[in-house]
């Protein structure tokens, strides 16, 4: 079993899937000779040529829209949006078209499209290269949204996304690209979309997170363990669908819930997770449902200390955990 970085897991899985299935191809800005601005498609054009590794014009709505067309024809496009921040011009194609073609044709036409996009901050990206975009999409039935936190999950879930019959947004935290390494089996394993994972069993409080923040939660849990506080940590992995069972089980186990995400709080993913718990497990709670998230500002500023102000950290998470444990 190889140890890989998060981004290598992306690239190797793309490569494997393109070898396995001639219908799979990638398209996006600078994905060809440049191998992507993050190098997630490096080496693909050399192996598969310009026909299956398409440098598109600079036009996101066309990237998604042309991707949809090719998916309607039965291909398996993997469209890259260079930064998640630049996905908005494609909003209409994603929400009104990709998410709705199966429904509006009563099952006749389908869109097996993957939209990959690097998201997230802590990379000196400023207002337009740091955003989290999941909450703007998770309200749209017809879409699936996957946000892996480890190389293992990247490989298993990207494979699942490419083989899925419906449009999947595959959001990669760009700070994780080279920060995180992990074991990735060489075989062709597929992880189910819609399943969270308990990353750590615990008894005192339940922490629910995903992406980069999940790693902060795990670090904080280590610290708290030394203080005698035992945290149950769940990695959502899929934002849509959410894994109701794993969440409710976690709630029942500890009676205290902290939801953690980098994205701002108001209307973020934590809102739905919390509301679901408040609807289905209210009497299992021993404390208010807490959310720790980004501040209510339009996006993450550039200056290092402003960025730090915005970003979560293991320390901020540990503080919130202590507070909740002490409740």
């Amino acid at each position, binding site marked *: 079993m190889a140890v890989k970085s998060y981004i290598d897991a992306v690239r190797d899985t793309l490569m494997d899937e393109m070898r396995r299935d001639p219908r799979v191809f990638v398209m996006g800005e600078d994905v060809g000779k440049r191998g992507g601005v993050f190098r997630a498609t490096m080496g693909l054009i050399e192996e598969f040529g310009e026909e299956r590794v398409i440098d598109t014009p600079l036009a996101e*709505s066309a990237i998604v*829209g042309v991707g949809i067309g090719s998916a309607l024809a039965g291909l398996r496009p993997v469209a890259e949006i260079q930064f998640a921040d630049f996905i908005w011009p494609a909003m209409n194609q994603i929400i009104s078209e990709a998410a709705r073609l*199966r*429904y*509006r044709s009563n099952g006749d036409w389908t869109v097996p499209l993957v939209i990959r996009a690097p998201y997230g901050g802590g990379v000196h990206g400023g207002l337009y290269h740091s955003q989290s975009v999941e909450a703007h999409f998770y309200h749209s039935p017809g879409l699936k949204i996957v946000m892996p936190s480890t190389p293992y999950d990247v490989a298993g879930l990207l494979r699942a996304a490419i083989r899925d019959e419906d449009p999947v947004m595959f959001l990669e935290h760009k700070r994780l690209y080279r920060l995180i390494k992990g074991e990735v089996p060489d075989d062709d394993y597929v992880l189910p979309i819609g399943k969270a994972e308990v990353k750590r069993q615990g008894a005192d409080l339940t922490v629910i997170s995903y992406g980069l923040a999940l790693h902060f939660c795990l670090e904080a849990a280590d610290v708290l363990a030394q203080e005698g506080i035992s945290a149950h940590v769940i990695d959502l992995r899929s934002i849509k669908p959410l894994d*109701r069972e794993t969440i409710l089980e976690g709630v029942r186990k500890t009676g205290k819930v902290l939801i953690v995400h980098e994205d701002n709080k108001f209307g973020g993913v934590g809102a739905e997770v919390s509301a679901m718990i408040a609807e289905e497990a209210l009497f299992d709670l021993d404390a208010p449902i807490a959310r720790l998230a980004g501040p209510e500002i339009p996006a993450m500023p550039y200056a290092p200390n402003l960025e730090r102000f915005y970003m979560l950290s293991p320390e901020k998470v540990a503080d919130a955990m202590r507070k909740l444990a002490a409740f």
Partner: protein
Amino acid sequence: MAARHNRPQSLRHRDIGLSDEQVREMYYYILLGRALDERMWLLNRAGKVPFVISGQGQEAAQVGSAFGLDRDRDIVLPYYRDMTMVLAWGQTPTEAMLGSFAREGEPSSGARQMPGHWGSKRLRIVSGSSPVATQVPHAVGLALAARMRGESSVAWVSLGEGSTNQGDFHEALNFAGVHKLPVVVFVENNKYAISVPESRQIACSHVAERAASYGMPGVLVDGNDMLAVYEAVRGAAERARAGEGPTLVEAECYRLVPHSSDDDDRSYRSREEVEEARKRDPVAVAASYVREAGVLSEEEDAALRERIRREVDEATEAAEQAPQPSPDTALRNVYAEGGAGAWQ
């Protein structure tokens, strides 16, 4: 720009490779489209169908397109006024009427969409939506797929002239132009986008001029003349099939009726203007062509119209008697079925 023909009309269709039989068929669809459309307005005014969006004035452009393509392999992405196009492409009058009545068995969407949102995978008609111009990048993607697979099919996509102002039009045509993909982009210029006339909508003088931006030919054609449209679309499709890339075709028409059954056009255009346009009504133009070309006698014409009246009656009756789709079908086909029904 399409060449202007000066030969005697009676030879025109043969010159461009159409048999008498084909011309009769084209004429049939023009009449059928118009008759069905008119019936829908009557049903709307009688309170039987809630909404009509009409193709009156655009029938020749649509039939010319359908015949200019290869109906056995090409893929079409029609817009909401293209009923005559989809009839010529294989949908039945009853299917269209099921859309108007929003009844079970409506093939395009299971009565989920408003009338005019055509679709059928079997017939290679891609399901359309209401936000305009979104179908143009889809057509480009279908063309890309055809090329990647070495198939020789062409993607034909239509839209109104106002809709060419959308970003999606620009982005898609540029993509098609850069990659020289087999697409025919067909603009049905009916001079209005709801109430806004072409002059307040489009800064250049003809939509066809926009082709230059995308390195493709732009063809301007008389949309009231089914033969001229046929020739232009066939030419564009041949070009595409030969690997020479996309073409933008603009068919000049006129929207003879209000935007939809919810519109009243008297506030924004004069009756005189509409009357003037009626002189070039594509149905009348086609009728006089078939008569003068001698492909249909007066009696045959009458019989054809009578047959169409019956077909429209039957379609109306069949659709009116069909049940509504059952309410719980509303939950179906959000995702591939059989999968895990997780919390969304």
